[in-house]
């Protein structure tokens, strides 16, 4: 849903537009991807049933406590397998007007049992680093920068878990980007539900959100701090900007009353205990990514 811009568009879209203007290749790739996504969304998903995606978790630690336990990693995988199958019990918190929108992504995640060379693995790598924390510059994905290289992104979902600077719980990469940086990065204290996971980001929803981006979902507010942006999904109301904390229903913006923003969507910015759903059209968009740029991954 779109409206005529009432105010400036924010930095995100300025950067996006600058890239579009300065890098003809970026423009062509983005347009081709979006057109393909629209075609696939119209055609319906090619994959039937549940897609199983092998995951490798790269734990990059400086202190012993950052070297998170296998139990903490397992707790994150369990959250993903509830959230991406819509079996999370807290979906009962979805307001009644949107209960019919809650959708099963039909994706499940398993720690890889074979490494890229076909050898048995736990699906977890552990790397000691001299760096106290990383930023959002992809450094954790390169050994030369204190991190560790990912496994082939056509076969594995790479999840790097490390310490990050303030006000960053994680970041992701859309489908169709550079292979060497493909995957998601999650703050160690916002990963899983056990061990070092810390309130209010201790329910594993940062990974749910970032993997949403990895499957081509946009933020629910359309990445503009006004009403001009779109998330290219028809069944999420237009919203002015991110919601934080634990909003009370309804929170109205962009003339979207009476129900307001769908802030309980995984693609908003609320606390872990306040997000609990993907919508039908978001699932269609994710399945389009699995049929398109991510067609090689999973079984």
């Amino acid at each position: 849903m779109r409206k005529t811009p009432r105010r400036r568009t924010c930095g995100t879209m300025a950067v996006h537009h600058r890239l579009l203007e300065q890098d003809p290749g970026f423009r062509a790739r983005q347009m081709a991807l979006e057109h393909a996504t629209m075609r696939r969304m119209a055609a319906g998903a090619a994959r039937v049933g549940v897609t199983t995606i092998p995951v490798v978790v790269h734990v990059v630690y400086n202190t012993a406590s950052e070297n998170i336990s296998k139990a903490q990693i397992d707790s994150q995988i369990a959250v993903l397998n509830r959230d991406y199958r819509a079996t999370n019990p807290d979906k009962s918190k979805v307001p009644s007007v949107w209960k019919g929108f809650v959708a099963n992504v039909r994706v499940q995640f398993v720690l890889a049992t074979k490494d890229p060379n076909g050898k048995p693995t736990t699906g977890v790598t552990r790397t000691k680093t001299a760096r106290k924390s990383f930023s959002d510059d992809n450094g954790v994905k390169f050994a030369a920068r204190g991190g560790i290289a990912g496994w082939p992104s056509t076969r594995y979902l790479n999840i790097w878990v490390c310490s990050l600077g303030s006000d960053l719980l994680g970041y992701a990469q859309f489908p169709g980007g550079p292979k060497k940086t493909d995957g998601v990065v999650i703050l160690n204290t916002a990963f899983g539900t056990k061990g070092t996971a810390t309130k209010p980001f201790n329910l594993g929803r940062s990974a749910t959100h970032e993997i949403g981006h990895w499957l081509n979902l946009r933020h629910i507010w359309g990445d503009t701090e006004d009403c001009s942006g779109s998330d290219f999904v028809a069944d999420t109301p237009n919203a002015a900007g991110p919601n934080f904390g634990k909003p009370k229903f309804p929170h109205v913006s962009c003339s979207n009353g009476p129900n307001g923003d769908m802030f309980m969507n995984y693609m908003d910015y609320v606390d872990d205990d306040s997000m609990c759903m993907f919508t039908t059209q978001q699932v269609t968009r994710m399945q389009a990514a699995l049929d398109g740029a991510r067609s090689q991954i999973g079984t």
Partner: protein
Amino acid sequence: MNVKDLSGHWMHSHEEDRDDELVFRPASHQFPRARGRTGFELRPNGTLIEHGIGPTDQRTQTPGRWRLDGDTLKLGGQTMKVVSVAPDRLVLRKS
């Protein structure tokens, strides 16, 4: 209030917002961890850097211009009222 009062690196303390009033604190403030935090650096020469949230959660920095007319702050293409300003707290109202 004058340009000097507002100059600085302000980050949105969204946890303190009330209704249509937006609260900002200096970047050095001890904010609680958040999924993201936006802000702006206002320079005395009228230029600014907006700190935003990218579409995959990476941070963005965008240059722009700002101007103060009385208590009206023009920030890029946005216009807001300055409710109050102190060294550790800036309150703006959407207009």
